[in-house]
């Protein structure tokens, strides 16, 4: 579908930069003019300076590494488990019918419900948060894989059978390519969830990472540092989004929906 865009890429970059600049000026002016008390919201320049000070210390980078490790470990475990289970359940109609109700009941259970349990099991260890991440991400991916596995074109499926492809070959050459766009969508959703849940776990449980640093900064009254760390989590979030979208384009370069995006 053709979309209406405002001008060429250069104009759009200028527009976007203007938007960011206005946001920055707004956050700078509001506390300086006394619209918001400065102890609640320091001017944007002070926040960025506090972030810079944080970023020149080793503790900050260790926290970033811990957060990324927590999220990535949980995401990887959840992704592998969900893809394997989803492909099996999705390609056997009986299994799908049997598991449907259970999936529908377990999926809406919020991951934070498990917090007390993991604290009792693992304490403030990094494993506590990883378990939460695995639980939260697993359903995101599983649901998408199930959708994808059902979406197989019946003609392609029957053709593969007529040509004598076995179960494994059909799974590999028919079901998997059909499900792949869904799998990647699941991965994209799950990557965002992984970051959110990692930070949540660190904030509440106190496992090492940026979330814990934010909680510490808040309770010790280091307001600019706290906002600086919040900005840092936002930057990580942007990087995750950009990274996953890039991966999506590479993995699905053959797919018509992605091919159509590249102008001929």
């Amino acid at each position, binding site marked *: *579908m*053709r*979309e*209406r*865009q*405002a001008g060429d890429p250069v*104009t759009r970059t200028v*527009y*976007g930069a203007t*938007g*960011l600049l*206005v*946001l920055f000026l707004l956050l700078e002016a509001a506390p300086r003019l006394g619209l918001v008390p400065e102890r*609640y919201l320091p001017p944007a320049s002070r926040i960025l300076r506090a972030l810079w000070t944080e970023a020149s210390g080793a503790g900050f980078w260790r926290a970033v590494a811990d957060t990324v490790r927590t999220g990535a470990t949980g995401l990887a475990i959840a992704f592998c488990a969900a893809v394997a289970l989803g492909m099996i359940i999705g390609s056997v*109609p009986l299994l*799908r*019918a*049997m*598991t*449907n*109700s*259970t999936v529908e*009941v377990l999926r*809406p*259970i*919020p991951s*934070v*419900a498990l*917090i*007390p*349990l993991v*604290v*009792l*099991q693992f304490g403030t260890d990094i494993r506590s948060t990883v378990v939460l991440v695995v639980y939260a991400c697993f359903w995101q991916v599983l649901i998408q894989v199930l959708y994808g596995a*059902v979406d197989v*074109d*019946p003609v392609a499926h029957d053709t593969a059978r007529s040509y004598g492809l076995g179960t494994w070959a059909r799974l590999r050459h028919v079901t998997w390519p059909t499900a792949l766009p869904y799998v990647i969508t699941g991965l994209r959703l799950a990557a965002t969830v992984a970051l*959110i849940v990692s*930070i*949540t776990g660190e*904030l*509440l449980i106190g496992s090492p990472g940026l*979330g814990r640093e*934010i*909680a510490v*900064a*808040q309770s010790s009254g280091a*307001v600019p540092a*706290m*906002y600086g*760390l*919040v*900005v840092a*989590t*936002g*930057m990580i*979030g*942007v990087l*995750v*989004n950009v990274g996953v979208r890039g991966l999506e384009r590479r993995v699905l370069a053959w797919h018509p929906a992605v091919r159509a995006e590249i102008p001929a």
Partner: protein
Amino acid sequence: MRAAARLVRVLGLPVALVLAWWAVTAGEDNFYFPPPTTVATTFVDVWVSGRLLDDVLPSVGRLLAGLALALAAGVGLGLLIGLSPRVRAVFEPALEFLRAIPPPVLVPVMLLVAGVGDRMKILVILSGCLWPILLNTVEGARSVDEVLGDTCRCYGIQGAARIRHLVLRAASPQIMTGIRQALSIGIILMVISEMFAASSGLGFAILQFQRGFQIPEMWSGMVVLSLIGVTLSVIFRQVERRVLAWHQGPRKRERAEGVRDA
């Protein structure tokens, strides 16, 4: 006979899982994993008498208040941004960044700004639920079918009527997707805003039980939380089905024709 087979399909695995839980935990005396019978009786003792009104209702009320505010603000701003390509180009990078901030970090921020109280929790839920609704509304508003848009222009449908009958209608599937995402984030924020700093509420109660090593009570709290999650998702699905009845009809037909019924 078919109904019986259906019943086995729907209830078979859940019943088997609960029985397995019961079989594993009933014999030995595991402190952390009480058998389901204990959790069930504790559930009745703790929640059905009193706590349901004192802790759960206010929590859910705050969640719904935050969600309603986020819906109003998100759809309003989303239409404003989505309808003009130029406005969208200005706001897009700033929104990308704001959306990427994980909502839970707003709990300490709002704690600072609004103190401990209902206002803080509603603000946290609002600021977390706003982005999925806002961004999906923007997406929906900008992908209005061009032919329909031109048709409306030809028939002189403008202003409020155009927004109501064309833009909102066309964007409604996307908006519902946004609300579904907001709902799951909202529940998380409801719980953690109470776990982080509160003296009442469901999250606070669960944490209190855990710290006091009242394990069956803690499990029963987790059950309450799960029930809220499941109930809200069931209600949401009913609402979605009604709101999008015009949209799902044709789609279901397409599916039935295109994909073999399994």
